[in-house]
């Protein structure tokens, strides 16, 4: 019964946390830009407004299904990573499963946006898939490294080991190279600057979202809020010792998010080829060296 409740409420909790983090990021950005900024609950208003709009566009059934695939894939990932109090599926699915499911949202987006026949969207998708190839390799290597270091492929066990051993066993201390590589890859994964090539408003008019309006865009916003929590939770579980209570968990999310925002504020946007080159020049060798250090 408990599990059923968690299954129902976990996406909602993740959505609320993710939305507040997005609102915080808008406030943070505004303050750096010397503005006052919107209220912190602004993203709720945006999503409500979008869901309340009368939508009269459709580009075929694939377009409709893809948006749900996007959201479904993200929520599915959410179930497989351990969060405080809920690790039912995490005991069954290990990191390899997570690596696979993480690809579903990208593919869903590619299928749906491909239907809209807008060249900006197609370029955006091409960029998203290129970036996938760029950040996935270092990220998977960090997965492997951490698994070898702790002799387990289960994220739950990893978290338990780090929680039991204290700060000295956190991934960021035991293997800082992998932690840095994964942090850079995480920027690419979340599409944060300087790896904002997928949306890039000045170049391709928000890329994949260009033909999305009303409810479609609303679902994409919800997915974005949840995906943020999912991907940062993975990082926290791997390198920041996970969390056993919600206070610690949210605090860690907040700190990680602030670091990422700070990096994003002072950098512009890489070009796609530069982004790929950078990913393969810096995080990838770092991750390889990190893994080699673990092996030998």
């Amino acid at each position: 019964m408990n599990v059923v409740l968690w299954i129902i409420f976990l996406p909602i909790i993740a959505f609320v946390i993710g939305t507040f983090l997005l609102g915080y990021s808008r406030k943070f950005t505004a303050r750096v830009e010397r503005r006052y900024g919107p209220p912190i609950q602004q993203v709720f208003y945006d999503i409500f407004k979008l869901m309340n709009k009368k939508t009269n566009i459709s580009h075929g059934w694939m377009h409709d299904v893809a948006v749900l695939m996007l959201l479904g894939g993200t929520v599915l990932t959410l179930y497989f990573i351990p969060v405080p109090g809920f690790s039912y599926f995490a005991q069954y699915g290990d990191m390899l499963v997570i690596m696979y499911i993480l690809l579903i949202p990208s593919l869903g987006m590619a299928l749906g946006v491909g239907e809209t026949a807008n060249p900006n969207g197609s370029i955006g998708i091409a960029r998203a898939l290129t970036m996938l190839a760029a950040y996935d390799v270092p990220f998977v290597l960090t997965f492997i490294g951490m698994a070898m270091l702790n002799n387990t492929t289960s994220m739950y066990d990893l978290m338990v080991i780090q929680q039991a051993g204290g700060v000295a066993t956190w991934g960021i201390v035991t293997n800082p190279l992998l932690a840095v590589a994964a942090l850079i890859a995480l920027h690419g994964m979340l599409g944060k600057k300087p790896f904002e090539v997928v949306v890039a408003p000045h170049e391709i008019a928000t890329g994949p979202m260009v033909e999305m309006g009303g409810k479609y865009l609303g679902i994409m916003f919800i997915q974005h809020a949840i995906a943020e929590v999912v991907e940062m939770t993975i990082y926290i579980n791997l390198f920041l010792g996970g969390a056993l209570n919600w206070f610690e968990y949210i605090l860690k999310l907040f700190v990680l998010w602030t670091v990422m925002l700070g990096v994003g504020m002072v950098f512009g946007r890489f070009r796609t080829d530069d982004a790929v080159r950078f990913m393969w020049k810096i995080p990838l060798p770092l991750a390889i060296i990190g893994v080699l250090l673990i092996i030998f």
Partner: protein
Amino acid sequence: MSKKEEVRDYEIFIGPNHPGIEGNFSLKLKLLGDKIISAKTDAGYLHRGFEKLMEERLFIQNIAIVCRICVPDPDPNENNYARAIEEIAGIEVPERAKWIRTLVLELSRLASHLFTIGGHAATTGLYALPNWTVADRDRILELFEELTGGRVYHIYQLPGGVRRDFPDGFGKRVLEVMDYIESRLGDYDDLAINNALFIKRATGIGVLTKEQAISWGVTGPDLRACGVASDVRKDDPYEVYDKLDFEIPTQTEGDAYARMIVRRREMEQSISIVRQIIDKIPSGPVWNKIPNPLKWKVPAGDAYVRTESSKGEFAYYMVSDGGRKPYRVHVRGASTTQGVHVLENLLVGSRIEDASQVMFSLDACPPEVDR
């Protein structure tokens, strides 16, 4: 794809509704992958028929509409228009009015450059810089408001002088604003101009060689970024520029980054010019009265006047047939070269990521093209 068609190139429109476009303008690009293989500009969205409207209005009425031709940098228009009438009608301008006009022109240049460097940084994803520069530009607009009553359009320079003298203590406030903007320049450097990622994005983009620039008719900061020290303020001095001490900054690379640097260094020069003007401005009347403007007939004749606007050479060719209305006014917008053929040529071979950066770095201003 059911038919075995091979899609090699495709077309994409940037604009008129797109954040990567300065104003209401459109680019029709043909792409092969990410690379632009042909580019066409499409203007005319802002066409109001200024030249025709001016022919149907009195000389004095036109002062209100000429400033609308270039929106970010309106004062060169007023200056050109006033000087063209003065040249045809042989009106003398009081010395103090000339100094005030120069001050207004330089403040306008500064405001326009602040706008442009912010916009240029935004095309590479640095959204903090436009927020800072546009807010700092507002201080200059407040000065304008105090002096002329208008924030954006000033309608200030009349034939025969300027509309009103400085308010009390205006010089002091101008110097305060100059000090403030000078103190902010360092922040812009830290955030954008010396930012490693911005340098990486902007170097080697939209490269113009010296020969190309001259043969394509490039003017203004874009030409100076190619190493040609040509500036209407020095070469063809108007108002009091021959009495002021300033340099013409040049770079030799001719790429987007060099254009950014030139604008950045021109802002320093403008600040120094404004300080010199406040320091040296003579006292006296600001307007030589012209005849009753509703019945005023300007003698027959023609004049070609040029101004260095923030975007390049801005010129008016005015013909009067001795009537109450101008017979013909031809506006040579500064962006008619940079914004059309130069842009088309530079876009070919560059990539879709850089299209809007090329446009912003050339500082093409569509209303000047459309008129």
